[in-house]
């Protein structure tokens, strides 16, 4: 079983009943209530179904209910494996070609429709939706808060890392899933909020109603006066040949499998994209005992926070800058990835190709807002606002302020006399800031009393170290005059190590001089250290992961609050101030194959995953038919699949460019309900006499 039994920061002893299910006629065991996709992955099954167009193996891509790549037959009915909970005795089957329709000819027992009414329908209970709902409810609005997942919190639930931002404003230093619990409690106990979890929005309609797929079991309609759309973002797909192989999927999907469902989804991954999502996913992989062969980034510099990149480098994962993916290949599953350097026009230099043997490729090339409900609402003339990633891709800490701001704006639109706190706007701006400058620091002079050493050299919106210091001796040194400023120590350090444990970037150590002329350095370590023996010599690394020295482990302690180990090492004073990590991964893991092995066929990349339409098929069609309207691509089934072009729409501009057409001259595809499929029998209005 590919289960994660031990994890340095996530509880692995969550109680869940074991149960039996069948997949294609064989018996397997899984955990009650987990997503079917997770149960299949845990049993080593990654090949879920076969596409009707060409028999290509199908597997997860988003694991988030968005893309429908993971469809399987569940007791005879097609279901998305990633949002269908496993139950005892389930008969799960691959779909090979077109699925058969269950020949159940008994008169349908129709559950009928549920009808609801509210003032504001808040769609999405991630950080922004939750924050917005609380704000609106406090203002006296009667709300419905719907979310497509069984637990509230959105992506907070997948975030096992400590939060950036500031402690007073957005729970910085607390891990995402703990923040989710705090906010969930608030909305569930508020008398003005009706919470419906596990209930995706299926569509909004011109008659000011929204369709809900309640508990994924029956359909309901809700009337509303206004909408607050906080539906988050989805991972962008990317074009390279082999982007459709089972084992290529989103970094978010990976976090779902690994962090939420504790499935060891891979043995060795390669990550495309060095934004925070890619960097954090890599870190999470390592924490889950999964090897990371490398990260590639098309830009010449790291795209995410430097502290996240530094962590990854220290763990032994190389980041290949200025590099792109040439191909992912394998026999029905990912077996290797080939990357190459790019020239100044981002074209690959084939001679520089390097191949790596991996079983999984994580796509972390950015997020695109899930804003289609908002767009439709505006087109319909409804009172609507958007918040969080649906509005602008940013950190969850910023999204919480964004939610509150959106709530106030909506309240104003609804005629409430409220004033927006300028402070919130400022905080949101700061929290969503891109990283500022890199500022060099001087190493401190080691003395006999403890003092912190900061490896935090890039301006990012973060300050938990300043609020956890019991002597208030860590403060931001004003440069920009906001949270982007870097922390500096001045005052008295008691050696409590709170700053070391709380720093989300693992970028603070404590040092002091010993009587024997050597120094002690205390560093954070978010991997299993229970097997480390005191007295052992560990290879200590500097900020970028370069070896400093073999240092003796003097002591280790586990900080329960921050779920982090604190390791105290002995080193020469000049070394001690440079030490901030211990290598986790063997260098062998990130070594390329001696000779690259790939075919470069970029036009074979899949654009429309649902209907398996390639770059070449689309560019040929555009040229032959002089297409300047995305709606016409439906002729070759682009966007006609279950996902409703959620995945391919972000790729189409570059495909038009490849066909020699300026995307600015192309009409957008029309947005129409439903945004997820609902069985006919579950949406029938039951009237008298039926």
């Amino acid at each position, binding site marked *: 079983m590919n289960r994660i039994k031990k994890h340095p920061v996530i509880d692995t002893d969550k109680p869940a009943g074991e149960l039996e299910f069948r997949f294609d006629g064989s018996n397997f065991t899984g955990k009650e209530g987990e997503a079917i996709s997770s149960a299949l992955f845990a049993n080593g099954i990654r090949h879920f179904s076969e596409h009707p167009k060409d028999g290509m193996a199908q597997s997860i891509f988003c694991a988030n209910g968005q893309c429908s790549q993971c469809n399987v037959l569940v007791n005879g009915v097609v279901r998305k494996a990633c949002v269908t909970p496993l139950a005892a005795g389930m008969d799960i089957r691959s779909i090979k070609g077109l699925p*058969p329709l269950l020949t159940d000819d008994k008169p*349908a027992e129709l559950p009928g429709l549920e009808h609801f009414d509210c003032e504001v329908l808040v769609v999405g209970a991630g950080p922004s939706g939750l924050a917005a709902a609380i704000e609106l409810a406090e203002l006296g609005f009667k709300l419905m808060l719907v979310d497509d997942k069984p637990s509230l919190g959105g992506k907070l639930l997948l975030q096992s890392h400590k939060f950036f931002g500031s402690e007073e404003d957005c729970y910085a230093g607390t891990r995402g899933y703990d923040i989710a619990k705090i906010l969930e409690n608030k909305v569930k106990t508020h008398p003005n909020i009706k919470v419906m979890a596990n209930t995706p929005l299926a569509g909004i309609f011109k008659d000011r109603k929204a369709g809900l797929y309640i508990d994924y079991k029956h359909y309901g309609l809700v009337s509303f006066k206004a909408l607050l759309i906080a539906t988050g973002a989805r991972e962008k797909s990317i074009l390279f040949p082999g982007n459709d192989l089972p084992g290529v999927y989103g970094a978010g999907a990976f976090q779902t499998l690994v962090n939420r469902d504790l499935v060891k989804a891979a043995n060795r991954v390669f990550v495309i994209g060095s934004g925070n999502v890619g960097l954090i996913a890599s870190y999470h992989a390592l924490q889950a005992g999964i090897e990371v062969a490398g990260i590639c980034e098309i830009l010449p510099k790291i795209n995410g926070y430097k502290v996240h990149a530094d962590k990854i480098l220290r763990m032994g994962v190389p980041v290949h800058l200025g590099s792109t993916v040439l191909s992912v290949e394998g026999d029905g599953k990912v077996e290797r990835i080939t990357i190459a350097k790019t020239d100044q026009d981002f074209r690959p230099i084939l001679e520089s190709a390097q191949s790596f043997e991996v079983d999984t490729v994580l796509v972390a090339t950015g997020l695109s807002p899930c804003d289609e409900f908002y767009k439709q609402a505006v*087109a319909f003339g409804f009172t609507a606002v958007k918040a969080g990633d649906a509005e602008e891709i940013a950190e969850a800490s910023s999204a919480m302020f964004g939610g509150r701001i959106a709530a106030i704006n909506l309240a104003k639109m609804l005629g409430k006399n409220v004033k927006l706190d300028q402070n919130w706007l400022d905080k949101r701006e700061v929290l969503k800031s891109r990283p500022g400058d890199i500022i060099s620091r001087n190493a401190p002079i080691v003395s006999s009393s403890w003092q912190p050493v900061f490896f935090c050299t890039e301006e990012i919106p973060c300050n938990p170290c300043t609020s956890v210091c019991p002597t208030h001796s860590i403060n931001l040194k004003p440069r920009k005059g906001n949270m982007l400023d870097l922390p500096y120590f001045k005052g008295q350090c008691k050696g409590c190590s709170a700053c070391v444990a709380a720093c989300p970037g693992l970028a603070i150590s404590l040092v002091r001089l010993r009587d024997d002329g050597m120094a002690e350095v205390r560093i954070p370590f978010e991997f299993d250290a229970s097997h480390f023996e005191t007295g052992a010599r560990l290879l200590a690394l500097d900020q970028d992961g370069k070896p400093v020295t073999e240092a003796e482990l003097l002591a280790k302690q586990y900080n329960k609050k921050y779920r982090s180990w604190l390791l105290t090492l002995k080193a020469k004073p000049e070394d001690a101030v440079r030490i901030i990590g211990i290598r986790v991964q063997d260098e062998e893991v990130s070594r390329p194959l001696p000779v690259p092995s790939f075919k470069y066929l970029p036009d074979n990349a899949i654009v429309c995953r649902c209907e398996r339409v390639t770059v070449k098929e689309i560019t040929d069609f555009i040229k032959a038919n002089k297409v300047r309207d995305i709606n016409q691509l439906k002729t070759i089934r682009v966007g006609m699949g279950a996902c409703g072009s959620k995945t391919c729409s972000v790729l189409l501009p570059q495909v038009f460019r490849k066909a020699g057409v300026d995307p600015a001259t192309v009409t957008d595809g029309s947005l129409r309900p439903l945004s997820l499929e609902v069985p006919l029998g579950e949406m029938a209005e039951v009237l008298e006499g039926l």
Partner: protein
Amino acid sequence: MESCDVLIIGAGSVGVPLAMYTAKKGLKTIVIEKNPSWGRGQNRAAIGGIRATHSDPAKIKICQESISIVSGLKDNYGLDVEWKSGGYLFAAYNKETQEAFKGLLKIQKAAGLNIDWIEAGRVSELCPGINTDGLLGGTYSPEDGYASPLMTSTAFHRLASEAGAEFRFSEKLLSMKSSSGRIVSVKTDKEDYSAGVLVNAAGADAAELGSLAGLDLPVYPDLHEGGVTEPCEHFMEPMLVDIRPDDKSGNYYFYQAKTGQIVFCITPKPQIWGKDCDSSSGFLPLVAKRMVKLYPRLKNLKVRRIWRGAYPMTPDGLPIAGYPKGIDNLLLAVGMCGQGFMLGPGLGKILAETIDAGSNGCSQIFSELSLYRKFEGMELLK
């Protein structure tokens, strides 16, 4: 001023195939369309059925042509439009319907149509799983069928372009000038045109266009919604039509496309007039109830997408085709009443021939579909 032989207003169900035929005849053809591409008015909302089994001789003749054209696109031009000759099946669940269908059979057979009454057992063979409770049988016309409207309009657009027709998209007609019984110029937001023949093929906008020429065209769009499910293995053959009304709807019909999806729509009761093509919340609960009652196994099939489109209706449910009195060069091809997709190819071919012949020929069709008819009654199989 740009001049051409044929200026068609509307790149839709009628305009695009018509342009193909006029261009093929060597006539310089320009098509003006307000939408950014072809088929984006009512054509995109068609569900795809094409049948010749109507109750009116003119429509029968036109649609027989259409079937021959659409079913031949693959063999003649290598353009697959997913045509399937799955037949139309009008199911009868009560005596009155049965009698009405049987009465119509006489007219239909006299027009040379391949259609007959089939018993309930045969209905179940064609539609396995259909509710047989009270099922008496139905009329079945195996040569009718269905095709993908998207693929079909793209095929016609391509063939028309290849034949030399020019399409001007995102261009709006503003005014017309007439003189001594002819339209002498047409002004759009981009260009002025003069044309030998101007064709009003403007679908839901036909009446507005007519008024620019001083005509009062009785074409009033009403709104219908349609939908498509996820695909599944092939299990039903014909377009299945249930004409029984209930308190909120009239007839409804659906078929399984070649690619496996069920495509469906329903006639709302009362009719919804206008042009607002945004989806409403009531459609799915209404159509779902009726479909799963008629065909219980559909309960497990998931709806993928829905849409709304306009039926450019005339008072009697029949199209208007021909030249109005007093304007020699304005050809009307309007009021397709929701059947533009099935009428368009045949009508386009017939009209192109009359334009080419420079005549008001095709007298039977023009007289039956005349603007000056009485517009009485309503076609039974609308």
